[in-house]
């Protein structure tokens, strides 16, 4: 009898404990595993090391919730909504979290090195910059083949990867619509992988489209069904980021935090993270009118 990997948020997130190294999928405001992260915050997990390529405001929220002690990333922010995550900025300027800054290329090379069992990655872009000063874990070396100067970036592995994807079957075969961003690489560099998905489909559906499987089931520990789970970030092929929510509700509260008033963001977290008793209640709090309006755009061709 084949084992089902479809489970509940509570069950899946028993894997994320205090002090874990978690890797987060998605890219900036796209495809962040928000429902998994809201559950992590709700569980009051502490001292996480967060590894992620350019982060959106999800990591800003995680810091505000007190879940993070270390971040390895190339960016935390909301692009044009807010150039840098206000809570992240405040935490860095006040030395409340440790940040290991890496250029996205270095971070990718470091994840790949971990997935290949290598101690470090070699990288050229960043030679001559302040990266070795800003991040002392990155070293300069002369490689022995041609004698050129390169950077050595320590391999980056995680205990658990948290990923948002489009489709899965109950056995944990994962498919992404439109773009998988860096999710497969992030999964490859992690010991265990939890995936939240928009839709659960039949195994026959996966088999009929097997070339679209982006993360095969042997890499996946648990699958959770969370429609609109990436809200307020986007889910490729399903909905766009909820810019109004981020810019009118999250960012003002986070900016107040940066100025020393932590109350508004505490209220935001109460309303959207701690009080909803499950994912469905979160969606109810956001409201179906709002959710269904996060659509795509018609493009005029001529």
């Amino acid at each position, binding site marked *: 009898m084949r084992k089902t990997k479809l489970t509940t948020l509570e069950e899946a997130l028993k894997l994320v404990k205090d002090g874990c190294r978690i890797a987060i999928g998605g890219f900036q405001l796209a495809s962040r595993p928000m429902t998994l992260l809201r559950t992590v915050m709700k569980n009051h997990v502490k001292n996480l090391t967060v590894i992620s390529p350019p982060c959106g405001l999800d990591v800003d929220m995680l810091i505000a919730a007190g879940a993070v002690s270390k971040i390895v990333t190339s960016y935390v922010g909301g692009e044009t909504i807010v150039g840098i995550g206000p809570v992240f900025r405040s935490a860095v300027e006040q030395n409340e979290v440790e940040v290991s800054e890496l250029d996205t290329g270095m971070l*990718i090379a470091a994840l790949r090195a971990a997935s290949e069992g290598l101690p470090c990655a070699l990288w050229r872009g960043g030679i001559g910059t302040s990266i070795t000063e800003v991040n002392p874990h990155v070293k300069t070396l002369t490689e022995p083949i041609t004698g050129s100067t390169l950077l050595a970036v320590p391999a980056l592995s995680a205990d658990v990867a948290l990923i948002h994807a489009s489709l899965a079957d109950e056995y944990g075969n994962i498919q992404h619509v439109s773009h998988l961003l860096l999710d497969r690489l992030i999964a490859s560099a992690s010991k265990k992988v939890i995936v939240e998905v928009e839709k659960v489909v039949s195994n026959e559906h996966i088999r009929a489209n097997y070339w679209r499987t982006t993360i095969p089931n042997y890499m996946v520990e648990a699958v959770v069904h969370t429609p609109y789970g990436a809200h307020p970030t986007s889910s490729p092929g399903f909905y766009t980021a909820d810019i109004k929510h981020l810019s009118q509700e999250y960012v003002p509260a986070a900016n107040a935090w940066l100025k020393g008033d932590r109350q508004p963001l505490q209220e935001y977290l109460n309303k959207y993270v701690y009080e909803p008793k499950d994912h469905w209640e979160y969606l109810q709090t956001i409201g179906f009118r709002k959710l269904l309006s996060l659509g795509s755009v018609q493009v005029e061709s001529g």
Partner: protein
Amino acid sequence: MSQDKPHWREVLASFISRQIHDNTVVAVGTALPVPRAGVLLAHFTHAPNTTIVLGPYACNLLPFKNIISFEFFADWRYSAYAEATIGIDEIMGRAGLFDVFFVSGLQVDKFGNVNLFGIRGEKGGYRLKGPGPIGVASLTANSRRFIIYLERHDRRTLVDRCDLVSAMGWCRDGLHRDELGLGGGPEYIITPLAVFSFDTPSREARLRYLMSGVSLEQVVSQTGFVFDYSNVEELQQPTGEELQVLRERVDPEGFLRQG
């Protein structure tokens, strides 16, 4: 509409357009609307065979009458223009893939070094934390050239020496770019007032073009490094055709003309 006097952003978009070559691959950062407009203007005029990389998608936009303005890197609506997806993990180290890459900064110095890390405080931490490294170190090292684009021109931004360096310019602390095995390099610094180039023996920035109506004195007083201004021309105005393409196809919502 096309009779209106061009906005300075439209002048810069047209300058950028003239730097784009046909049959190349160009990545357009979405948080930089003017470079994006310049690249699309080139695509719709003299560079129809250019592959435009929008977020993680390889696009050709010729079949489309006008282009929706997106602000976010990984907005999947770009896929409407896509012919392929681009593996982010495949391009960061691909030397020479991109012909040109655009970058902005908190600080830029006379050798084209760019700082996005932040401004140092007295105790070695950050007094002002910047956006971080993003992908700038890799992409400026691997593109055939890069262009520095700033939406402001002041002594806080254009400095003699950057506190920290995210993208290596032509020279830093006496060490030259080619001594480090880096290709490419910064080609221009573009600001609302002027354009600097690096075509000097020392690779120090020199003033190359002035925006119409801007005086040399203004640029000197608002720039934090000393520069050569012995051969300066006025920045060329967009042609009627360029303005029409900009306003009807590239920027129908008029974002470039605001402010």
